[in-house]
């Protein structure tokens, strides 16, 4: 085995995998600027499909609905996910801890069709019993928030684990009440994790088609539902245009958030270092 050829092989392997991952995204973007009605045959560059998208009121109202659901469900996910992470990390022993662990990881691994079916059947049972909720925005929201809570719990948990519990103890020794420890110490340290959990669960909700299809009622079509029903019928250049717009927004958001997180991290490290050097004086 020769290490130079090994290195070339390693680089080639990585390049091919990256190409594989990005090829469809590049195609989507390139062909959104194609003038031809045929999605796959290049004629010449134009913004024709963006103009069509601007007039596509079905798709636009679906995008607005998806944004609304994604924002609300991400908030709910971060809220319940933080609770879950605290329950599982701060309390190592309580009755039914195993049950909570497995329930909270269930939505992560269970196929979407099962989560969607089970939630719908539960909602229908409640409906028969109490007369509400009607299928629509609220029920989609519940489904997405369930899925998001599981993911948010994972993100917050990993942050809680690497956080120094000495800081909590120190602030308690200095006389902080438990609530103050949370608001003054733990919460500020958690903010970057909460931001990334929000973005992740927002994206999950914005992307979901299976849960929404099970849980939505008449008149409530999310963007993925509209795209899915069009993609089933065939290829449609407007989909490329809407894809390019979302890809642009997501890329900017991801880069901005990773920039923000790394900056926060640096700031925190600096402050910690300063605190330690002060205490050693």
């Amino acid at each position, binding site marked *: 085995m020769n290490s130079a050829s090994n290195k070339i092989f*390693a680089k080639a392997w990585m390049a091919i995998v990256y190409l594989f991952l990005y090829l469809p995204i590049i195609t989507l973007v390139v062909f959104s600027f194609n003038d031809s009605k045929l999605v796959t045959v290049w004629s010449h560059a134009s913004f024709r499909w963006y103009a069509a998208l601007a007039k596509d009121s079905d798709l636009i109202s679906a995008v607005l609905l998806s944004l609304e659901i994604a924002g609300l469900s991400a908030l709910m996910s971060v809220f319940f996910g933080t609770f879950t992470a605290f329950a599982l990390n701060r309390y190592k022993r309580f009755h039914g801890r195993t049950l909570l662990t497995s329930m909270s990881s269930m939505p992560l691994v269970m196929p979407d069709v099962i989560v969607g*079916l089970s939630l719908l059947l539960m909602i229908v049972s409640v409906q028969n019993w109490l007369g509400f909720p009607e299928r629509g925005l609220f029920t989609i929201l519940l489904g997405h928030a369930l899925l998001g809570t599981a993911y948010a719990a994972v993100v917050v948990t990993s942050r809680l684990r690497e956080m120094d519990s000495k800081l909590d103890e120190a602030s308690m020794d200095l006389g902080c009440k438990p609530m103050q420890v949370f608001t003054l110490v733990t919460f500020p340290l958690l903010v970057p994790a909460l931001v990334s959990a929000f973005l992740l669960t927002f994206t999950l909700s914005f992307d979901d088609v299976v849960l929404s299809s099970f849980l939505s009622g008449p008149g409530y079509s999310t963007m993925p539902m509209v795209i899915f029903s069009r993609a089933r019928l065939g290829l449609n250049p407007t989909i490329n245009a809407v894809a390019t717009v979302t890809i642009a927004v997501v890329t900017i958001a991801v880069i901005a958030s990773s920039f923000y997180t790394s900056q926060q991290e640096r700031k925190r490290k600096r402050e910690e270092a300063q605190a330690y050097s002060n205490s050693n004086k």
Partner: protein
Amino acid sequence: MAKKQSFFTSLSAGRLVVIGVPYFWFLLLAAIPLLIVLKISLSEMESTSISHMIDWSHGWPRLTLNFGSYQFLATDSLYFKTYLSSIKYAAITTLLCLVIGYPFAYYMARSPKHMQPTLLMLIMLPFWTSFLLRIYAWKTLLVSNGVINNILISLHVIDTPIEMMNNSFSLLLGMVYSYLPFMILPLYANLSKMDMRYLEAAADLGTSPFKAFWLITVPLSKAGIIAGSMLVFIPAVGEYVIPELLGGSSTLMIGRVLWDEFFSNNDWPMASAVAVVMILLILVPMGVYNKAQAEQMEGK
């Protein structure tokens, strides 16, 4: 110590809330719905509400169970074939993801340290763009008048378009494409934490790099392999969107059967029975996954 004591006692109300809120949330939205699925799978089509299932004619509540849906599942060989084919496709997907993802994660973990965050972000970035749109993009690439065929024809590599859509090739490609990051991420997390001194020691003792890889690196990354494989295999068994968009009618996947039972046939008990059997199939790999996760946490 006294301070700590008072901290925990003062928090007992807080403790109740912190544990109670997520408990209530997941019981309502995760556990109870699954029990309802089980219940409805044991009812008849006309009487899916729970009150219909409880028989009061004897003066006390008695649950009437109906195994009709399960009998139908067992007798119609199409269901059996579909379960088998779903497992087959999920297993092939897992294997392909492992074969592609392991070397990738390995090389990524051995890349210069300052490069690794960027390489990792490049894996996550497609993950952030809509999965549905990426699957749709494969459709535009693979169809017979699609981008790949057009390019190959214009380069005179082929004369007639290759059939790449609506078969097991396009299905597997879409599944490997979608699930590959789920394989790479746990493998990378595992491999990047590995203690390189083991490999140095092996080299000092005269082990060839190839042998050291199989005898040291692979066994040490067992937890990552298990986690990655389960994260791919379990959702792949029940996948619906990819077979619907890329698989065509010839590829049998159980997620689609469930969907059709529910949305086309409106047969809720049958859809529930299909779901219950699917859950039973996933239960074993899920147990393996949870056990591996727990072991890894204790090992830390």
